[in-house]
């Protein structure tokens, strides 16, 4: 299971990094979104992978930490997802404004090479 999880992170990172280095703004925004999936999964993985042990206290398990998944990375990732939405929105608007101002969707605002 861990192998698949690690490979998933790797593929998402690779795709994200590739897109991040592209010259078009849309490619960069897609790259950031893929990279944020990878990073969120990576942080979530810090709590290790457990099945069927959501950190919701129930009467049977009581409060034994070993029976629940680590809640701290989950709380961090939840925050990261929401903030990720906000930054995506901001970046999108900036790229649209830049496109309107410069007439191109190149990240530097000018086409050095077509």
């Amino acid at each position, binding site marked *: 299971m861990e192998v698949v999880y690690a490979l998933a992170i790797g593929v998402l990172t*690779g795709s994200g990094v590739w897109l991040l280095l592209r010259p078009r703004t849309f490619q960069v925004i897609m790259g950031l979104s893929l990279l944020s999936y990878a990073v969120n999964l990576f942080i979530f993985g810090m709590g290790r992978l457990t099945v069927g042990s959501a950190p919701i206290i129930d009467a049977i398990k009581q409060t034994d930490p070993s029976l629940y998944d680590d809640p701290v990375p989950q709380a961090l990732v939840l925050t990261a997802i929401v903030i990720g939405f906000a930054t995506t929105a901001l970046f999108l608007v900036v790229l649209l404004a830049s496109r309107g101002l410069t007439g191109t969707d190149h990240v530097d605002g000018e086409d050095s090479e077509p």
Partner: protein
Amino acid sequence: MSLTWIVILPFAGSLCAAFLPSHARNTAAWLAGGVALACVALTFQFYPQMMGGAVVRDVVQWAPSLGLDFTFRMDGFAWLFAMLVTVMGALVILYARYYMAPQDPVPRFFSFFLAFMGAMLGVVLSGNLIQLVVFWELTSLTSFMLIAYWYHRADARRGARMALTVTAGGGLCLLAGVLILGRIVGSYDLDAVLASGELVRAHSWYLPALILIALGALTKSAQFPFHFWLPHAMAAPTPVSVYLHSATMVKAGVFLLVRLWPVLAGTDAWFWIIGSAGLSSLVLGAYMAIFQRDMKGVLAYSTISHLGLITLLLGLNSALALIAAIFHIVNHATFKASLFMAAGMVDHETGTRDLSRLSGLYRAMPLTATLATVGAAAMAGVPLLNGFISKEMFFTETIFISGNLITRLGLPAMAVIWGIFSVAYSLRFILQVFFGPSARDLPRNPHEPPRWMLLPSALLVAACLVVGMVPAKTIEPYLDVASLSVLGADMPLHSLAVWHGVSLPLIMSLLAMAGGVLLYRALGKYQQGTAVVPLVDRFHLDGKRIFEFLLEKLDVSARGLTQWLSTERLQVQLLLLICAAFASALIPLSHGGLPEGDMSVAAIDPAFAMMWLVGAVCAIAAAAQAKYHRLAALSLSGAAGLATCMTFVWFSAPDLALTQLVVEVVTLVLILLGLRWLPPRYKSIDDDARSLGARIRARSRRLRDLGLAIVAGAGMTILSFAVLTRQAGEGISPFFIENSLLLAGGANVINVILVDFRGFDTLGEITVLGIVALTVFALLRRFRPAPESMGLTPQQQEQDAQTGRSPPDPHALLPVGPMMLPAVIVQLLLPVAGMVAVFFLLRGHNEPGGGFVAGLIVTTAVILQYLVGGTAWAESRTRIHPQYWIALGLLCAAGAGVSAWLAPRQFLSALTWHTTLPVIGELHLSTVLLFDLGVFLLVVGAAVLILVALAHQSRRGHRKAAPTHVEPKYEVAPGEMPSTPATAYALVQPNKGD
């Protein structure tokens, strides 16, 4: 404590003056005068203690845990200097009240003035070297404000900038020097530093410290080769020049040299550095002063010269010379201030300071002329005036200098030459302005200035006379107190007297006086109507020009360096960032390696593997398609997001999965809305436009990036696998699980962490969210779409052509056309979505859910109305004001936090109530719910604001296009659709000009 008040009062007064209305010149003057007089009184009351040789200290704790205090310290010398600063301040305030024009914003002037006075007193009274440097830089800043007071004048701005650059740069050197000094001594406390002179002078770091501190002092005191800023600072209003260039700003440099004299003086290095700077300024300043045309210019160069005299005296390493230096600090302040005041009065009454235009003012302004003549005589060193006594002391010191023949003969010779020059420029200053035939073409008709304006000058001139005639009865006790505090036990016997009998210094004085008169007569013809300084101007030794040349070179080279070292290209920056990430991962790995994990690996579930096979293919495909097929790439990336979401479900993170799912939907809609404004991009066009070389370059760049991407992916895979296969360390997680129900009363640990344990973080996060939403809104208000994406898209045109477009009717019950049925469904969906959201919000504390999820659900429902009905239709019925939601959300969340103070407990502590209601039963209320409600409201507001602002842009495009272009889109008949999209855009494009 009253010691601290001396420094605080001026700053407080400055703050008060800043808030006065700009025409309140009398109020401001009374305020400033009152503050100055209070400071005089506060300072003077220390005199009895100073007489006993005591050192008064006043420590105000600032950050005791860091060992940082405000230390104020007053000894005899500091007392004398503080008296000088405050008394001069009071006199200048009186003078300035009458000098400044009613139309000048006078309260601003007094505000800066008092701030400068406070900074200067801070320098004088600091008991800590670092604190001294802070006040030192404050004097540079406030003097910048004062010099640039008439900021509409270019020369004032330029002069102020030059003064600030030179003196504040010197201040930085001083800071470095003081840091070294503090390292040598082991303390920055002034008393500790003053007590370890032997240690400092013997230390190997003595020379660097000396050079840096000397740079600070010499720049401040306008000593050669940093003298050039002072004449340009004359663009300031004259009261500023009176204060800054007679008693305070430039004196700060020599104050520092005297202050550190017991520590740094007594070595050859001191003699050569300080002495030669002083001697050069002494002679050069006096020489330049002869040839100035501006009255204030003469005084400015004379100031450089007299400060050179003080510096030279300090550099001579003799205790008597030090006493002479302190004496001359006081003397120079009195006569130079009175002369600056006279120059200001002449300027005020005649409208010009040009020596070649002024003449014979004695008739119109007899009182001013008398005062100026006595002041200038003191400057020239005429007997029975205070300038004479300190000049005699200087001549005596030059004779008794030991050393080789050059210094033994050269120094007295230079002193006499200086004497000749100063007599010459003083004569010229007086004779040119006040004597001779009456001037005819003055801008104003001259008459005597108001009495109160003459008073400060008169008092100063009286002081020159009294000190010059009976020095032993007037200045000597104060001078002794000051000298004793610097010299301590080494204090030599001395006495101030007017008559020493016929001696070598007296002969030198007479020689200088006779030579000065001769020189003035010889130069008389040459000086008419010329401002050229012989020798200096011929060799282009203009400090200002050199300064500006150096500044420009610095600017150019800084720009060059920036261009060489950095780039504005985003791709290169991102590349470097990724390489840095590699390096930061590789460095620890290369040291420790990556030992194998110790945990057993779970068996692979085929369903999970299959899901990620699809997810991975989607991610790679999204990467490949993002350039030419944006919609496809967006959908593929969404599929990868879904796989991520499912992974959260799989590995016991229901809250994450829920949030990821709704965020995924909202993000997708968001980017879809943005796609419309991006330029079309077609592979065939791109390929044709490129040359062979460009294509090869692009290919090699892509290969490099592909390599990087593969390495990054592989690295993250290995790293993740390594982490996942070893035991987690002991963290803080058990605390949350054990206390979630116990302390916070919630079973859902994630939600409890977000709204209770780490509520403050969440408060910060939603604030950021609100700010981002408002930023997006603000950016989009000014949004200017590219002209070619203004009209309808080809898809819209095609659709219109097939169905026959009718303008949308915002008041129709349902949108007409193909969207009618979906519109019914989404309208029904709205209340259902609201209910689901409330359900998730309320159960969030114990089950998966919470404010974030609930907020995004409502957002999705709202945005669906827009998607299906169109912006116009949706807004005709639902009036959502997302800004209010954001404000209300923040208020709720913050209110929930503040309500804890009622208990009273810490901010954001949860309060709970249990009540039993008749029908509903037991009710559990908590401020945590209010907080989560705030989160919910804010998320709805922020997300809707962002989406609606973006959706609105399509309406803007139409509105803009409409007036100039009468519905061209409807003129395209079906079947006539242009074949290539490029021409399609050209057709619907509005006039480019608007």
